[in-house]
């Protein structure tokens, strides 16, 4: 009698059993409690102090949003775990089959290699979601303190960490399949992670194409989503990179295919992914999921800007490390691009820090060209940029609306969080690990 379950279900269950048997996963789970805990406790304490706790000036926290004040720092612990713990869990699950010889047996099943890798990827993602439960505990604690939680922005933060984990899993799967030994795979994976940090650093100094590339590094992706902004191009690029990593892993687990052919297939995959990423960067839709619309102009400004149909060109004479450039980009241009996707921005500078360019002609200028009408300004604030554009477009600035976000101040210390994250969480995980080894369940 043949088993009625589908082969893929058998494979999923096998991968799940292997994950549960993996010490690396349990260690990651144990570490998640204190990691999230220390971030959460520190964030809630700061938030409380800014909201008027312990005699600090009450009212400062009125502009505070839990997204920036609590969720971004709390969930940043997950970024750390994704960079330094998750790769080992993924490498263990992918390399384990090769090390034990199970791969030689499993390769004799006609199931496509990509399906096998997909099963591993899904199980690893499920394992990561369990780890993210530490963040869920933080949300429950915050609500128990009387804190406000805005589900769309919380979901966006979680999406960022799921996408980041997907990238890590795909990268680790690829390195584990390409290399013979898990330690080599670990070095390669961490090497790529460090490489993305270098790209961020170079981008901050050099600007230009580096700056554009740095927008798609895991750090930048997580940072953007932690601020409640979902950009379609970013999501598509991440999806393309995840698919590339998984397919690369599948290519290199097919031990029966000559190495040369696998190398050609990998090169073709690289070219295809590069083309796909390039195409994805032209996708312009984005969604601001933050409660305080921190990634958007006011609704009145957006309505006014939507009336502008002429192409807008901006040439900013600011060096990459000039703080005014960061102000301009973060507070004005990033919001402007969301309303006017055809906006073309060009930065001009002869040096990286701009210190010795201050006396140069035009340095510090922001030159606008709206359908042939031109203006020059030195203002880098959102208000300054909008004013210039309205002048050029001949549109009256909208009146300020009253529905300004007032924030959710909360002057409550993180009571009981230490016990939960440093005591109960590790104890529960250790008990679960022990129980899973004693009872080999029906998986």
């Amino acid at each position, binding site marked *: *009698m*043949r*088993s009625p*379950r589908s*082969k893929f279900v*058998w*494979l999923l269950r*096998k991968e799940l*059993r*292997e994950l549960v*048997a*993996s010490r690396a996963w349990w260690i990651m789970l144990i570490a998640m409690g204190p990691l999230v805990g220390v971030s959460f406790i520190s964030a809630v304490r700061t938030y409380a102090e800014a909201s008027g706790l312990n005699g600090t000036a009450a009212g400062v926290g009125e502009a505070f949003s839990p997204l920036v004040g609590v969720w971004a720092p709390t969930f940043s612990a997950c970024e750390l775990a994704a960079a330094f713990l998750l790769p080992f869990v993924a490498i263990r699950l992918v390399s384990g*089959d090769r090390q*034990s*010889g*199970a791969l*030689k*047996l*499993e*390769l*004799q*099943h*006609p199931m496509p290699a990509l399906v096998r890798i997909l099963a591993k990827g899904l199980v690893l993602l499920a394992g990561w979601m369990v780890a993210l439960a530490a963040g869920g505990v933080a949300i429950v604690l915050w609500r128990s303190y009387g804190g406000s939680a805005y589900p769309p922005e919380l979901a966006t933060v979680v999406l960022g960490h799921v996408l980041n984990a997907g990238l890590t899993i795909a990268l680790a799967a690829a390195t584990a399949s390409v290399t013979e030994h898990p330690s080599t795979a670990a070095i390669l994976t961490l090497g790529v992670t460090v490489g993305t940090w270098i790209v961020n650093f170079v981008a901050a100094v050099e600007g230009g194409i580096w700056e554009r590339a740095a927008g798609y590094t895991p750090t930048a992706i997580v940072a953007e989503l932690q601020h409640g902004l979902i950009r379609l191009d970013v999501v598509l690029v991440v999806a393309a990179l995840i698919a590339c990593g998984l397919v690369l892993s599948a290519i290199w687990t097919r*031990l*029966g*295919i*000559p*190495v040369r052919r696998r190398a050609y297939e990998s090169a073709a995959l690289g070219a295809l992914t590069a083309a796909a990423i390039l195409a994805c960067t032209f996708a312009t839709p984005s969604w601001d999921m933050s409660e305080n619309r921190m990634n958007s102009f006011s609704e009145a400004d957006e309505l006014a800007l939507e009336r502008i149909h002429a192409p807008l060109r901006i040439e900013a004479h600011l060096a990459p490390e000039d703080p005014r450039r960061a102000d301009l980009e973060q507070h004005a241009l990033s919001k402007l691009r969301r309303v006017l996707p055809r906006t073309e921005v060009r930065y001009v500078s002869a040096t990286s820090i701009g210190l010795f360019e201050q006396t140069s002609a035009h340095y510090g200028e922001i030159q606008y060209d709206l359908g042939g009408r031109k203006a020059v300004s030195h203002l880098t604030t959102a208000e300054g940029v909008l004013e210039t554009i309205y002048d050029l477009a001949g549109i009256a600035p909208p009146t300020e609306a009253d529905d300004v976000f007032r924030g959710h101040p909360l002057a409550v210390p993180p009571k009981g969080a230490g016990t939960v994250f440093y005591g109960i969480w590790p104890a529960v995980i250790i008990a679960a690990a022990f129980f899973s080894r004693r009872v*080999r369940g029906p998986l």
Partner: protein
Amino acid sequence: MFGLEVHHLTKRYRRLTALADVSFTVRPGEIIGLIGPNGSGKTTLFECLAGILPSDDGTVTQGGRPLAPGERSAALFYVPDGIAPWPSQTVRWALDFTIGFFGGREDLRDEVVRRLDLEPFLDAAIGTLSKGQKKRAVLAIGLLAPQPLLLADEPFDGLDLRQTREVAATLRAYAAGGRTLFLSIHQINDAARICDRFVLLSGGRVCGEGTIDELSALAGARGASVRGGDLEEVFLALT
């Protein structure tokens, strides 16, 4: 009943030729032994046949029809030597997985467990088993696999004399039931006890193929003096 013809199989590792123009036939329902010293290419040959190692040249056919590496999984199952697959999982689960994932024969499960004496450690993790226990567990996986041809690399390695005889008897029983067995065996005496025919491999080349009598005759034809029926003498004369 399943047979196989191997034609001019060649495998190179850069400048080292592991298999050179290897050709032989596996007849349906027989137990054929692949005999050769360490490094003669036995494992490489099995892995090339199973399609988990690419060969540089040669073809594998069944009844004259070429079998591409991707098609061989339907025809043959290879049990590697020295592996401990899924080391954290129990033997019981590994057998269930073989039946569920590879489409193994559930009706044979209890019989295989009994014949290979696996009952005492069905609930032990594979990674915790002794070498001989692991070998029997992996052989059980091979015997449960549904493919008509089973390739087993060193099936007696790690087994004591009694276990070797019991496993040999088990393999014979399955061959009698219609399964074709191709066994790579390091110990020539073990091979002589169980196999119907032999392929002698040395330095990646086939030095002879046939029954002991046929190989003795071949050795005689090459001018060697071989005592009747002694596979060791025949092997030494032909390699």
